[in-house]
């Protein structure tokens, strides 16, 4: 029993160190605070896949009136998130189905117009900037279409090269 507890304590300590590291990368002034708008980025780089609503919910718990977040609050909340394994990754086949759902004619690609329409008008809307950034990489410039299978594979490969989060 004691061994288990010690193990768990060690685990928590390690999790806390990882969270602190990620936090400090965004801590511009080295004063243990980050801009609330970067919290989503930090959470995601720790291996989680929250959507915007979930990020906002978390942020609401810890954001100060001046828009900043303190390390100690973030640590508290985030440690629980990681221990509970919340915001799990989206499995590959689910993403594939999501793209297929936007592909009305089932031809394996989505036109630029459709993509922009869906992602900027539906769901948790992309900003103009986000949309443009995605298009730059995702679109095949000659046909102005997104071949989603290739795109998805490409992004997945890139990701596995870095920062796999192992609890």
């Amino acid at each position, binding site marked *: 029993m004691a061994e288990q507890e010690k193990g768990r304590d060690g685990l928590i*300590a*390690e999790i806390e*160190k*990882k969270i602190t*590291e*990620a936090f*400090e*990368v*965004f801590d*511009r*002034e080295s*004063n243990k605070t980050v801009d609330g708008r970067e919290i*989503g*980025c*930090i*959470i*995601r*780089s720790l291996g*989680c*896949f*929250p*959507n*915007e609503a979930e990020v906002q919910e978390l942020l609401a718990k810890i954001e100060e009136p001046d828009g900043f977040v303190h390390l100690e609050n973030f640590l508290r909340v985030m440690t629980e998130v990681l221990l509970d394994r919340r915001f799990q990754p*989206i499995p590959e086949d*689910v*993403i594939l*189905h*999501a*793209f297929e*759902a*936007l592909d009305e004619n089932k031809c394996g690609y989505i036109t630029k117009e459709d993509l922009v329409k*869906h*992602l900027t008008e*539906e*769901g*948790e*809307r*992309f900003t103009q900037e*986000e949309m443009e*950034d*995605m298009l730059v990489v995702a679109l095949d410039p000659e046909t102005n279409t997104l071949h989603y299978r290739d795109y998805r594979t490409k*992004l997945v490969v*890139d*990701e596995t*090269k*870095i*920062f*796999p989060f*192992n609890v």
Partner: protein
Amino acid sequence: LGTLSSPNSLRGLTFKAAVLIQQWYRRHVARLEMRRRCTWRIFQSIEYSCEQDQIKLHNFFSYLMDQFTPSSSKERDFISRMFISGESYKEAELEKYCDYESIEVPDSYTGPHLSFPLLPDHATALLEAFQQKQQLHARYVLNLLHETRKHLKQLPNISHVSTCYSEEVTVCGDLHGQLDDLFLIFYKNGLPSPSKSYVFNGDFVDRGKQSLEILVILFTFLLIYPKEVHLNRGNHEDHMVNLRYGFCAGLSTISRVHGKKILRMFQNVFCWLPLATLIDQKVLIIHGGISDTTDLEMLEKIQRDKFISVLRLKKRKESSRKPQIEAVNGESEAGTDAAGNEAAPRLSLQPQSAQAPNTANRLEFSRWLRQTVQEQIDTCRRLMDISESEPEELTYSSVVSLKDVDEPCWTRQEEWKQVLDILWSDPMPQEGCRENKVRGGGCYFGPDVTEKFLDKYSLQFLIRSHECKQEGYEFCHNRKVLTIFSASNYYEIGSNRGAYYQANKTAHMLTMTQRISRVEESAFRALREKLFAHTSALITAFRSYDGDNTGKITLSNWATAVESVLRLGLPWRMLRPQLVRSTEDGMLEYKSWLDDLAMEQRSQEHIQSSLLEVIYRNRSNLETIFRIIDRDHSGLISFEEFQQTWKLFSSHMNIELTDDGINDLVRSIDFNKDGNIDFNEFLEAFRLVKQRPS
């Protein structure tokens, strides 16, 4: 799917799909952003630790002056040659030494020809020539430098620019020898002209490969459009800094014969660069920053050419100095008067002897050394105090390169601090003003300091450079301070953008694609090299976590141990996957990990690995020391000089090394049998390793 679904459920489906895609995509972007910032952190921490090396170097020279007692006559001679130069240049001598008229331009030369006074056509010719990778002949370079110096001498310390006369003023930050960035700025913004003013805010040289070309272009435009082009001095327009950061190296490869002269001239041109530029009495442009004691009135009055280099040696200890002079000279040491000003010591002005006294007494030698150096300083100080005649130009040996080594009179000290602060300070978010220990000079100044300063002189705004910013620019202190950095891809392709600022317009950005993975590769390569350079210390640290001597440690302990040794403040857990390839059940076999690192670095198999490690760790310091020894800038030092330097350096740094170790090292380098080492080749041998794919 298809025709059977009602429109509502279809919409619901696509809505959900959109949410998923957005969620997934945002995660991807966050990952990229984290990678980008980590990479940035790596570069910055390594760069700053490099600047700390500079401090170590200074401590080394202080050590040589204060505490080291040579053990043989050879050592004595060697050290004395390092410190005593006895070179002082008057105006006429400078002209004679760095004369260009006797240099012939051969018929085979296909580069641009300059004639004075310069015309816009000359500038165009130069730009075209440099774009085609041609070089300007040494004669024209020297001629240009002479004319530039003449021009700069008549400029005040603070240049004044008015936007009434030219429609726009463009401010560019650090260029650091990156000619392509200058070309891009000219391309996007236009060349300097009567309707287009430019201010170049220092750090034109070092690091990038085309420092000389940049200077030639900037000086040319300066002479063609003297009212529209303004140059500020940066901390890299400084001889001591040039020795370390590559400008000197670049010159000697360009022209073995004339490199020396060109370098001398540059020393005498840099010190005449103005210290600041003021636009419309409202916007102050300086290279580094300010401090809570920055005084524009004092800055306007000082003789700026006195500061050939602003880097200083540590103060020598009081007690060790005074008695010695007494003993040697037999004269009593002058005391300090009531105002704390030191009265001029009563040493007679004897001609400098270039030879060390021929005595076996070590102590006497040290005394002699200290006294001679002190004499030199006093001579120069005395010459400077002669106000009627034209101030004489003085260049010291590169080590003793300034005026304030030892309790100078307070105004000299204060003047020096004013210049140092302007060139080396950085803004900080916290209030107050404190010493800039990271850079070893200048200070960190807070928003309150800025506010007070702007208020005092009725200014609106400060523009400075000195720090690389990812986007090329950054506002701080309530948008009262703008940092502009123009050398893009400063650390590596894609590491940052360059920017330039247009007065009265919002800041423009030079957009350059950021290729994250390539930058990362470069950052990690540098980091792996650093790790390798600390192999022994790392093993000791790892072992302390491996009590049972299993050869393995947890990844968590790995991260803690690495930070305790390297002290770079990096997020090691985030970086780990790039540094540690394989683990067994969450444990790392640290010895084989370190061996893998070594395999990547090692080029010379037969060199003792600890020696290699030591060289890696101290490479930049060694390089600087070598360049100081190579006083005729020929690129060659003798085997003995090398040995001597190494011995001195290692004894100071407490590095244990046998004579055999040094001999092995030298033997493995190709050097011509006359006992000279082309040390460029020596250093290249280690640089080449970096370029191999890992």
